[in-house]
């Protein structure tokens, strides 16, 4: 949980889908959370319309969705409750659905790309094709 006085609240929602890219999205969100890039939270809570999750999304400084594939369930789940997240889609970042082994290396690479793209987006310099919402 993020404390109210810490500022810069960034919540991370992976799609956690059943495909390999969904698993990588989930693992990446956990790693980003452990590395203090943001705080992973439950997309299912938003989907279930649990008020605490919805209000947390609305009150966060930024919401980041990590989707495995272009169906973009995580992004759309947040949009359904009126929240526009910064969106990352792994298949738009070089991974192939159904053909990507879930390895620590793959997760690490995706985390690095997300952090780099996010940094660029912060400076208004979003990398093309990165899946970042500012493009």
């Amino acid at each position, binding site marked *: *949980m*993020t*404390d*109210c*006085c810490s500022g810069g*609240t960034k*919540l991370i929602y992976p799609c956690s889908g059943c495909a390999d890219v969904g698993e990588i999205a989930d693992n990446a969100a956990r790693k980003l959370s452990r590395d203090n890039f943001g*705080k992973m*939270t*439950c997309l299912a*809570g938003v989907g279930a319309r*649990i*008020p*605490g*999750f919805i*209000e*947390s999304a*609305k*009150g*966060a400084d930024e919401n980041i969705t990590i989707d495995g594939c272009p169906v973009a369930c995580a992004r759309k789940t947040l949009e359904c409750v009126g929240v526009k997240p910064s969106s990352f889609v792994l298949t738009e970042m070089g991974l192939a659905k159904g053909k990507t082994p879930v390895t620590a290396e793959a997760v690490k690479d995706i985390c690095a790309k997300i952090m780099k793209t996010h940094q660029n987006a912060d400076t208004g310099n979003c990398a093309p094709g990165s899946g970042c919402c500012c493009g």
Partner: protein
Amino acid sequence: MKLEILGTGCPKCKKLTELAQETATELGLSFEIVKVVQINDIMNYGVMITPALAIDGKVVVAGRIPSKEEIKKWLLENPTK
């Protein structure tokens, strides 16, 4: 009516407590204020950022201090008022 203030006790949580109390009193409502300070208890509401306010168990705001007008609206919308 139960007004729960979810937060670990920082100045924003205290401000929200004061505002909620003040607003409910002005409306002449019968209420009790409950402070939820344990992180696990707060997370059981799905709240990821504090301060948060729950009215009769339903979280109405998280991560910011709402205006008095907003609190008034939520209190009046509550079916148990």
